[in-house]
């Protein structure tokens, strides 16, 4: 099967004060297939959000810069080469995105209705009344009751979960093929989180969406993802089908992350953590980027960075242990 969205060697850098360069995303390749959910997990600062914004060319340039050697192919066409007009059509068109904070992602001085119809009209439905009808349909689609009344309300009159539903409705206005969801539930209450996740899965089934779910929450990834890619220090550390990744993690970083998830059935005095600090994007460690925090690290890890290794193409890990399993520390 051909991927719907194919990312190849995407590198995004930021020029920092003092002449430093932060390479927030460094040579990332990803495939997203039609109808699947790919979870991109990682700590704060691992480059997840920068990657998502780079896919839509929404990085402020300057100070940001996307390396022209990278490619982001949607149905085989490289959108990094497109001009501003074509980019505008693909944003909110084939490629839609929702954000972490629904409250601040909606314009406080415009009604929900005018924000949705505006998006509908920007994507090929210029007629005002037809756009309004479509807005009502979209609100009903995302499970908002009494959509007629909601259209006339301002964002602050809605609850957080309702606001995120409105954001999703807006993202759906252009009939996207790919939905990028950047921490869509992080700002919401736990019960509302589940409702939004269920809504996303439901929409995905009904509309055949491919979803790139960006999250730091492994539990959430386990719940909805078909495949998981773990990001560390601007690179993909491990990628695998969800079940395989959670049952048999190969990269010590994935292992440490899974170990750090608090479990209700284990009584511990202290929550386990991944030792050390995440590195800075201005000075990634040489060799394997995880080696300063890795309990298995040996000379080879300090000297050279592994590529994505694996016994089969489905499960890849950027770790020398794949090569030399005997080196695994007890």
């Amino acid at each position, binding site marked *: 099967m051909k991927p719907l969205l194919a990312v190849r060697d995407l590198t995004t850098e930021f020029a920092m004060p003092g002449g430093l360069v932060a390479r927030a995303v460094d040579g990332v390749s990803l495939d997203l297939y039609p109808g699947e959910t790919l979870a991109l997990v990682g700590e704060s600062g691992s480059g997840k959000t920068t990657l998502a914004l780079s896919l839509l060319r929404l990085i402020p340039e300057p100070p940001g810069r996307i390396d022209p050697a990278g490619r982001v192919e949607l149905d085989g066409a490289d959108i990094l080469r497109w001009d501003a007009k074509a980019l505008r059509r693909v*944003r909110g068109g084939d490629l839609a995105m929702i954000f972490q904070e629904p409250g*601040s992602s*909606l*314009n406080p001085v415009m009604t929900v209705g005018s924000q949705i119809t*505006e*998006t509908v009209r920007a994507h090929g439905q210029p007629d005002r009344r037809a756009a309004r009808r479509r807005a009502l349909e979209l609100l009903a689609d995302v499970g908002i009751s009494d959509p007629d009344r909601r259209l006339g309300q301002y964002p602050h009159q809605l609850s957080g979960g309702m606001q995120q539903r409105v954001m999703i409705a*807006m993202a759906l*206005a252009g009939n996207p093929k790919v939905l990028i969801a950047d921490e869509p539930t992080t700002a919401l209450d736990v019960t509302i989180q589940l409702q939004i996740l269920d809504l996303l899965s439901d929409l995905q089934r009904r509309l055949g969406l491919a979803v790139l779910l960006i999250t730091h929450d492994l539990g959430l990834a386990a719940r909805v993802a078909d495949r998981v890619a773990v990001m560390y220090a601007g690179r993909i550390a491990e990628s695998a089908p969800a079940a395989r990744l959670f049952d048999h993690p190969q990269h010590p970083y994935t292992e440490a992350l899974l170990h750090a998830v608090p479990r209700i059935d284990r009584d511990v005095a202290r929550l386990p953590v991944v030792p050390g600090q995440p590195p800075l994007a201005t000075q990634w460690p040489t060799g394997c980027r995880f080696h300063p925090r890795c309990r298995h690290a040996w000379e080879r890890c300090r000297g050279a960075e592994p590529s994505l290794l694996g016994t089969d193409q489905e499960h890849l890990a950027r770790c020398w242990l794949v090569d030399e399993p005997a080196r695994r520390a007890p």
Partner: protein
Amino acid sequence: MGLAAVGLLYLIALLAPVLAPYDPAAQLDLVAGRLLPASLAHPLGTDALSRDLLSRLLFGARLSLSIAALAVVVAVTVGTAVGLAAGLAGGVVDAALMRSVDAALAIPRVFLLIVILALWEHGGIAALVLVLGLTGWFGTSRLVRAEVQSLKQRDFVLAARALGLPAWRIALRHILPNATAPIIVSATLGVGNTILIEAALSFLGIGVRPPMPSWGNMIADGQAFLATAPWQAIVPGAAVVLTVMTFSVLGEALRETIDPRTR
């Protein structure tokens, strides 16, 4: 309350022809009716040319308030356009526009006005409005630019871009409406300030020129008689002070209610 007071002021100005007992330019009785004190026939007395002071004050209000309002409309329009352009474009455009504004702000406004109006002698009221407006937008442009710069970092602007909305639409429908609160506040304070400057210019004889009554030239007319008929200068002076205060009160009240940063 400030709003009601300003509303009342404009109502009075609008109704000046109805409220004024006499024609403000009519010289009623040059022999016996000069510099009369307040009486039933002339509630505020008459001036040195035997014109009814109340009528002149009312017509003066009409002129002063409309000149100030129109000048502020010009100033806010230009200032908003420049500030929006500078804030959105950034880089060289922003630097060029803002350094020009800095340079313009370095010239004292009243001197600038005096020079322009002295050279443009026959421009009349329209010239006065235009010149007051075009020298009054610098502050607004700075304010709008700062506001736009912070607004364009906001999540909903990023979200609007991610939804593929055109840049002009984001500028006019998402950024500008969120900046209206400080613009309205500064416009209100600007009206008071402009009334003051217009009065000063008219006092100096280069703003509203006789025989048209304006508070400024009424004060100028009255200053010769400060010892004998002090109300000649005090009445229009008090009108200026009260009006400017009203606008300040309204501006502050608006700032408190609609500008979220002061909450």
